[in-house]
């Protein structure tokens, strides 16, 4: 360590400029660049370049066949002023993410907090029960069977047996039910990475802090939660939030699988579906790129906003 800090003080050396010093450091650490090279190449090719490319293409009318023309802001103007379905998609996405994101975050945290004081074996079992739906692939399709449109569906037969309804409801083909049901299914699959991160974060809080808190007059578990637990697991809260937000914007697949594409009256149509429609089916790549760029900005903004909120926790 001593050797390293001595070298880093060398920034202030008089015999070389900052640039020369950087170059020297780069040459000294050439192995580091070698080690990161494969990952950075792949990351650049499949994450950075696609993002940049979609920003660039969003100003053109590229359609995969002809040489594109630059159309400046036409795509964006069409999106926001001429494309009614896009506005529906925006509303749906915001409702969807606005409910699923916070709800899944709260549920992940509450469950993790509730099970924190259980014995390790019981905790492991409960963790599995809550985590399993998020890793089980397409198991959510079972909701389609439970809420099946005919009277053989379990929910419909229950409603008819008890006399609440006389006719079966076509749940996933009825614009009134599409959103609420998809939100429930999305929530069901949403106790994923953030949930595990919270469990670990809670386990990591030093028990002596709680004892010190009790001595200092913390009266109950709620005060303990606010004054001790939450502030000491802020890093996990932050990471969990990012995972929850990104997840909340990524549930388009569930809607497509359960309601078909496009969903009835566009009731479950999200920005993601709009993107798939124009990019994957109509090959209007320029227009699709504008949609992708808007979606990208919405996600980044949502994350920034939430980061701000979480930094205020416990203060």
């Amino acid at each position, binding site marked *: 360590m001593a050797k390293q800090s001595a070298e880093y003080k060398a920034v202030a050396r008089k015999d070389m400029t900052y640039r020369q010093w950087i170059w020297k*450091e780069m040459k000294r*650490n050439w*192995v*580091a660049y070698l*080690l*990161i090279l*494969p*990952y950075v190449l*792949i*990351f650049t*090719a*499949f*994450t950075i370049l*696609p*993002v940049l*490319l979609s920003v660039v*293409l969003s100003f053109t009318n590229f359609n995969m066949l002809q040489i594109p023309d630059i159309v400046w802001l036409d795509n964006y103007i069409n999106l926001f002023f001429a494309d009614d379905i896009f506005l529906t998609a925006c509303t749906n996405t915001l409702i969807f993410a606005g409910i699923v994101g916070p709800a899944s975050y709260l549920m992940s945290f509450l469950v993790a907090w*509730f*099970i924190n004081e259980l014995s390790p074996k019981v905790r492991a079992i409960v963790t599995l029960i*809550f985590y*399993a739906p998020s*890793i*089980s*692939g*397409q*198991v959510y399709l*079972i*909701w389609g*069977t439970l809420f099946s449109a005919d009277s*053989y569906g379990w929910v419909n*037969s229950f409603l008819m*047996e008890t006399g609440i309804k006389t006719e079966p409801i076509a749940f996933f083909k009825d614009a009134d039910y599409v959103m609420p049901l998809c939100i429930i299914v999305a929530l*069901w699959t949403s106790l994923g*990475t953030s949930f*595990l*991160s919270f*469990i*670990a974060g809670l*386990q*990591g809080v030093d028990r002596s802090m709680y004892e010190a808190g*009790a*001595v200092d007059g*913390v*009266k*109950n*578990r*709620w005060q303990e939660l606010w004054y001790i637990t939450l502030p000491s697991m802020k*890093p*996990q*809260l*932050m990471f969990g939030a*990012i995972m929850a*937000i*990104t*997840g909340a914007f990524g549930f388009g697949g569930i809607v497509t699988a359960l309601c078909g594409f496009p969903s009835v009256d566009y009731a479950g149509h999200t920005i*993601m579906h709009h*993107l798939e429609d124009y*990019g994957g089916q109509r090959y209007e790549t320029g227009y699709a790129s504008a949609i*992708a760029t808007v979606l990208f900005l919405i996600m*980044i903004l949502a994350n920034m906003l939430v980061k701000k909120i979480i930094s205020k926790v416990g203060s």
Partner: protein
Amino acid sequence: MARLRTRKHKVVLSRSVGGDAGITVILVLLGIFMVLPMVYVISQSLKPLDELWMYPPRFLAQSPTIDNYRDLFTLMNDSWVPFSRYIFNTVFNSVVGTLGHLFIASMCAYALAKIKFPGGKFIFSTIRTSLMFHSTVTSITSFILMSALNMIDTYWAVIVPAWGYTLGLYLMKQFMDTHVPDTVLESARLDGASELRTYWTIAMPMVKPAWLTLIIYSFQSLWNAGSSIYIYSEQLKSFNYAIGQITAGGIKRAGASAAATVLMMLVPILMFVITQSNIVETMGSSGMKD
């Protein structure tokens, strides 16, 4: 000043009975909500045909059978692309994708966590930012880039992007930050060990929980991958896609499709059961400071 309760000189944290009861009730209700659909899919897979179409439907199978599992294998043998091919595709993608990801990401994570070099912080914060958006954003333009690289409709279209999976790198780097002491690396370097050697023989054995987490995450996402917009050929499609085709075969196949779903979900669930404590340990260092 609150009364301080102690037992054997240890502070007993105050927990009200009402709070305990309330929490238990909520936990049980949420637990039922989580577990019922899972039970139902297993129950569906065990129902004989007449029970699948019984009115009123029963939640649990009355006379469970494994007929649906047998049907599934018959259906598999009848498909024009042999089912073994779909299974091979999924296993091949999962294994090659996961192994490549493990080495490429951990190498990069080691350099970012344990070597100070110009640009390292910037590269890491860029990678971290990419956790903030979903990969759908890049799907269309990735398609263009992949066709430029001639990767469309090959295994590589699925495997190579999986090597660059961001969450795995992030978790590995965070774990190395806290679990590989600089002093140990420093003394190895003084003894003349190269960076590649310290990475492989000193750092990597210290972060086994992170390895497992990386493997599980990457394997899960590749195993559960359905149809991809980058793959057209029937011969290259995944097992999950083929199961989707069975499900799409209509009501006659409801039982077989439930059986397929159960088989598919067993693999990731079993892997998680085995590695759970390691994954939770890795998550302990997942936090973001700023």
